[in-house]
Structure formats: structure tokens, C-alpha cells
């Protein structure tokens, strides 16, 4: 066992570091680092830069345009990008639906969709949750009926993240109501520009438009957009969830937020001394930092132990989101009374008004409330505990 990086790994980190330093647009990094509002073009621009370099899909097999990196290299890459303030690569196409298409899709689906995902030509959204189907996802009702060479889709999806930008959505739909609920689900790729689709914003606690409700009213979907077999959608969905959970640890981003928190705490004063030197506040930061150090090694252990992430990956989701939330909480607390001013207009990149309070004051509380989502999305942390309890502990 050796937890020091090898010379090759250090050289790789250096290579990623210089590339990100030289190619990550300053205006985008500025937004990410200061919690300003990102627009669609910010994500797409960065993804296209990575695409040109051949680094946009580290998790893909080489034959499809992936990097064939070792798990350690993938971690180094995510670590460097996250730390530098690169926006998160949108996971819906590259991380989530692509592995499903690669493993279960038709020849046509692979040839048509995968290159468009790789080049960020299509923006993807996820159509899983419904108003009545959250943690009990298999109870979903959005219905697809086969009519000739089309499916007719009726129903509703919700919590569609950034669905307002989406060109495509992958949906779990019910194709059979007469069998066991898991066996009547199919996996369908739907064009978001189809007639009959309506997207309605849901405004979150930070007054941002990040999620949506998506309505399907007699939407016609070509049958060639069905992935794999009808009725096997649940199997594909479970396959996909495993892919989502490793990235969800977000170690690099948490390291960045920890650094920012320390800077904030060094500037804020308590009894005339930097808050960072106040033992009460300092120890709260230490507790999170230690958990983050441990999580990084836990992540590397999970990545190194097997080719496909197993149920242990649920640990990464639980602990990763615990840490992300704790950091937003501490950053808000560090502001003291300046956590109160709420100025959504100040989060626009082109806003040049007079700031109120310290630099972080405008966004700390908003980010804190926004991040309550992390322990709920991607399979709530309670569902993750159910998974570990059943699959790992055998309870």
C-alpha cells in the first residue's frame, strides 16, 4: 500500500493543472468561485474546451471517445477541475445516459446520440421523479403507449434540473400497468422540442430557477428511441444510479469551498480577532476538514477496488453531501449578521452595484439553502442508507 502519488501521477496532475489554468475561461471560474449565477453558455463553453482536448468524458471507454484513465487519474482530474473553479460537467448526458446507451442502446442510438453528447451539441435532462414518485420511484405513472412505430407519452416529470435548457430528456415511463411495478417500466429518450411538452419553472429557496416540472401531453416519440427492451427500464435505471454516485462525492469542489471558508473566516472578526482563530469556530472547520480528508481516501478506495462501483458508493453520496452541506452552513455562519442581506440581483455576472457587507455576504445564505437539495437528490440519503443496510450489511 502506498498513498503517495507516483511520479507519473504527479506529472499527470501537473498536466491537468496547467491545462485548466490556461484554458478555463476566467469569467466562468470567477462566477463559480464567487457563487454567481451560471448561464447555459458557461457550461457549454467549458465542456467544448474539454471536448477539444479529448477530456470531456473520462468515464467513457476509449472506443467511444473516453480517456481510458485509471481511477486515480480520474480522481486527479476531477480534483483539479473542482478546485480551480471549473463548472461541473453536466452529468445528465455524459455521466448518466451515455453509459446506459453504451451498454444497452441500439447501434443507431450509439451512432446518433453519443457523438452529440460528447460534443455538447445536445443538452440532456433527467426524467425520473414524478409528483407522486420520489423515493418510491418504481411507482411512477408517466405513461407511454405503443402506436405503430411511435410511443405516445402522457404524464408529468418533476425536479427536472436545468430542463429549461434541455434538447433531450431520458425518461422512465410506464409501458405496462398489468405486471409488477418494476417490470412495467421502460427507458425512453425524448426530444424536448417535441410538440406537447411544457416546462414550468420551480423556484427554489434561493429564488433561483434551477429545477422544473415537465409535462407530457400526447407527445409522439419514435420507437427507435426506446433503449434496450421494453419493460427493462428499471434495470437500466439502477445501472445508471451506480454511475451517478461516485461523482457525487465532489471532493475537489469541497476542497475549494473549504479554502474559501478559511479565507472568509480569516477576514471576519470576533472579539477583534480573526474568526479562524476562535477555537469554537476553528474546531468546527477542523471537523469538516478531517471528514473530507477521510472521504478522499474512501473515494480512492472505492474507485480502486472494482471496475464498477457497488453499493459501497452510497457511502460517498451520504458523506460527500454531509460535507458539502456542512461547508455551506459554516460559510453562512462565518458571515454573522451579514448573512441576512439577500440580493439575488448581485448574483448576475454583469451586476456592478454597490455591495453590502463582505464579498460573500450576498450568496452565503442562499447557497446554504440551495445545498439542502444535496441530501435529497440522486436517491435521498435515507434511500442510500436503505441500500447499504440491505446490500452491504444484509439487514
Amino acid at each position, binding site marked *: *500500500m*502506498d*498513498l*503517495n*502519488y*507516483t511520479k507519473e*501521477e504527479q506529472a499527470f496532475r501537473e498536466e491537468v493543472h496547467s491545462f485548466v489554468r490556461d484554458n478555463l475561461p476566467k469569467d466562468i471560474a470567477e462566477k463559480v468561485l464567487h457563487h454567481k449565477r451560471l448561464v447555459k453558455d458557461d457550461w457549454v463553453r467549458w465542456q467544448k474546451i474539454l471536448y477539444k482536448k479529448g477530456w470531456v468524458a473520462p468515464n467513457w471507454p476509449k472506443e467511444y471517445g473516453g480517456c481510458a484513465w485509471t481511477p*486515480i487519474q480520474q480522481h486527479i482530474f476531477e480534483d483539479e477541475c473542482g478546485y480551480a473553479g471549473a463548472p461541473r460537467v453536466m452529468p445528465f448526458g455524459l455521466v448518466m445516459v451515455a453509459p446506459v446507451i453504451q451498454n444497452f442502446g441500439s447501434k443507431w442510438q450509439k451512432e446518433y446520440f453519443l457523438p452529440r453528447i460528447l460534443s455538447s451539441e445536445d443538452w440532456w435532462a433527467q426524467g425520473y421523479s414524478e409528483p407522486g414518485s420520489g423515493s418510491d420511484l418504481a411507482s411512477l405513472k408517466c405513461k407511454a403507449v405503443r402506436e405503430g412505430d411511435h410511443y405516445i407519452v402522457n404524464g408529468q416529470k418533476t425536479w427536472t434540473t436545468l430542463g429549461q435548457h434541455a434538447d433531450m430528456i431520458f425518461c422512465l415511463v410506464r409501458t405496462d400497468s398489468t405486471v409488477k411495478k418494476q417490470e412495467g417500466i421502460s427507458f425512453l429518450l425524448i426530444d424536448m422540442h417535441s410538440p406537447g411538452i411544457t416546462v414550468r419553472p420551480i423556484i427554489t429557496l434561493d429564488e433561483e430557477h434551477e429545477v422544473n416540472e415537465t409535462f407530457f401531453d400526447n407527445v409522439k416519440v419514435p420507437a427507435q428511441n426506446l433503449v434496450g427492451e421494453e419493460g427493462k427500464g428499471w434495470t437500466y435505471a439502477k445501472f445508471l444510479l451506480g454511475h451517478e454516485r461516485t461523482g457525487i462525492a465532489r471532493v475537489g469542489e469541497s476542497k475549494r469551498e473549504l479554502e474559501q471558508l478559511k479565507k472568509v473566516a480569516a477576514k471576519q472578526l470576533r472579539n477583534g480577532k480573526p474568526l479562524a482563530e476562535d*477555537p469554537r469556530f*476553528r*474546531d468546527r472547520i*477542523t*471537523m469538516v*476538514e*478531517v*471528514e473530507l*480528508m*477521510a*472521504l*478522499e*481516501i*474512501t473515494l*480512492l*478506495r472505492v474507485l*480502486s*477496488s472494482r471496475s464498477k462501483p457497488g453499493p*459501497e458508493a452510497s*457511502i460517498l453520496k*451520504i*458523506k460527500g453531501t454531509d460535507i458539502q452541506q456542512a461547508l455551506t452552513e459554516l460559510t453562512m455562519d462565518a458571515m454573522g449578521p451579514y448573512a441576512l442581506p439577500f440580493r439575488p440581483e448581485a448574483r448576475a455576472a454583469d451586476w456592478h452595484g454597490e455591495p453590502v457587507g463582505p464579498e460573500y455576504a450576498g450568496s452565503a445564505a442562499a447557497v446554504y439553502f440551495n445545498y439542502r437539495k444535496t441530501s435529497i437528490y440522486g436517491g435521498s440519503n*435515507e434511500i442510500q*442508507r*436503505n441500500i*447499504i*443496510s440491505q446490500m*452491504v*450489511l*444484509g*439487514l
Partner: protein
Amino acid sequence: MDFIFSDEQQQLRDSLQRYIGKEYGFEARTAIMGSKSGYSDKVWAQFADMGLLGVAYAEAHGGFGGTAVDTMLVMTELGRGIVIEPYFSTVVLGGGLVDLAGSEAQKQAVLPKVVEGKLLLAAALGEPNSRHELNCVETSAKRDGAGFVLNGHKAVVLHGASANQLIVSARTAGSAREAKGISLFLVDANSAGVQVQGYRTIDGMRAAEIKLVNVKVGADSVLGPVDAALPVLERAADFAVSALCAEAVGAMEALNAATFEYLKTRQQFGRPIGSFQALQHRAVDMMIHCEQSRSMAYLASVKVQSQDANERKRTVSAAKIQIGRSGRAISQEAIQLHGGMGVSNELAAGHYAKRLAMINVTLGDVDHHCERFASAA
């Protein structure tokens, strides 16, 4: 970077695991705990035969030239079996101090005997007022001809009553909490003026209060640099802390396994209590605590060998913080989930909890290491 243990390391781990499973069961352990010395000569001799007592020392000193990772593997198995033999006090902390601070002659005089199982050591570092601070030394060492005279009170010396030789920190210069002025001495436990009051500790081990009254030692008993032993003392203590973290992980694993087994077999309301979600989620949190602790024990065992003192201190302190918090959380939950059985001294679960609690207060608790972590930034 890799997480792979070599064949030799796996063999070492497996053979020790088999031995403890066969020879060091709960009843055997209870019998040893009740014996006069609190450890077993027979087991100790077998440890020597298995090569366990020289894992981390150089071959030139009778050892096997292993690293802190080898020590980690051994300590994890000792933790899994809640073994109460004086391995930590003699081999890890005592032997570690001699190995890191000693002259070649001192190493030759001490380490081969330790490896053969013929010499027990104890590190007398703490004092009634020192709490966890290694630099807080009031025991004095005054020059006396070519040698020194020691006076003072060393507190909670692990296995202090059974040790043949003591490693004593004493002040040769400076005031009580000054970093400079600390020296280490290798003292024969039989020396005139060494007064030992041995007692049991709640985790089944032994410790002692040791009073030094005009104890005369020769110049050759000085271990490491005069007046400037604190850095090497901290290094040896960090090595010992990394080993304790590994021991704690073994104890956590065993305690979790026992608890999860109990959840599967204990029936109430006509079904196993492990079928209740309120308990399942707590079990999962115990498992996560153990995995995070294992990650930190791995990291500490590697970084304790770092030449960068700040990196070493930060990582080892971080590991001790994690282990302290996780050990406490797991212990309390394990007792609670065992219900009434959890508070019975007849069940192993509580004994794991006791050991984990004592590991937390050995060589610095969570608060102590939080302070140290911040100052090594």
C-alpha cells in the same frame, strides 16, 4: 498510489488473525486479564516466535525491516481481538522511541532483546499536570558528575509495573512547558529510587504511577539529544498514534460485526430487530464511521513516515480526531443496539467500547489533536 498489501503483509495479517481467533478468545482473554501481570508470558513468547515483536525494526537490530504499514496491519488485528498484551507499550511506543532516538549502541542493547520477547519497555512521558502535552515536563534531571539524577512523578505509564526498562522524559533545562530543555533517559526499572504503583485500567490493561526519587543514571542512559529531545519524542508519539488508530479500526470492525450479527438474530415483536429502519440507519452510520476511520488509519500509517514534519503532524492528528469521534459514536451505538446485553460485562461488545474509549485518551484526545491540527497548518 495503491491500496494493495504485499503477499508477506497479507500472510502476516492472516497468521496473526488465525492465532488470535484460536488462542485469544474472550475466555482466554478474561483469564489473562485476571492474572497477576495482566499479560501472558506464553502468548508473548509466541508473538516473538511469529516475528511480531520486530516487525518495524531494522534487520541489523533483529527486526524485519518493515514500515509503519506493517505495524498498522498487526495493530488492526490486535484491536480486532482486543488483545491486552503489552505490544503497544513495549514494541510500538517504547521500542519506537529507542529506534528513533537511540544511538547505535543503545539500539543494539535494547531492540534485539525486545524482538526475542526478553525485554519489556514502558514510556514514562505523562505527568499529573501534563494532560496530553508532551512538552509539559516537570520531572527534573540534574547533572551529577558524568550522569544525571532524576526526580519527579510520571503518570499513567502504560504497563509501567511490568516493564524492565523505562523511557523517561525529564527536564534538563528550561521551565515546565518549554519545548527546549527536554531529554529522554533509558532507566532500569530496578534502579534505586524508582517507586512503582501499578493498577488496572478500565480496558483490561495495566498502568502505573512512577515516582523517581534521586534516581541516578549514567551518561550512556541519555536517549537522543540532551535538551532537545522533543522533536524526536513527537515523531515517536506520532508513530504510536498511527498504530493506535489502526488498533481502533480493528476494534471498530469487530464491534460493528458483533452488533450487526445481534441485529440479525435478536427477535422482538416477532421479527429480527435489524428489520427496523430506525436501527438499520444507525447501523449504516456505524459502518460509515468505520470506513472513514480506516481511510484515516491508512493515510496516517503512510504520512507518519513523511520527512515533512507539518504534513506528518497534521495527518496523524487528523486521524486521531477521526478515530476519537468515530470510536465514541460506534461504541455508544453498539451498546445501545445491544439493548440490556450491551451493558453486561459478560459480552465482548462493552470491552471493545472500553478499549476504544481509552484509545481516545491515550497520546491526545480529540480536543488536543484539534489544537495541534490547526497549529500545524
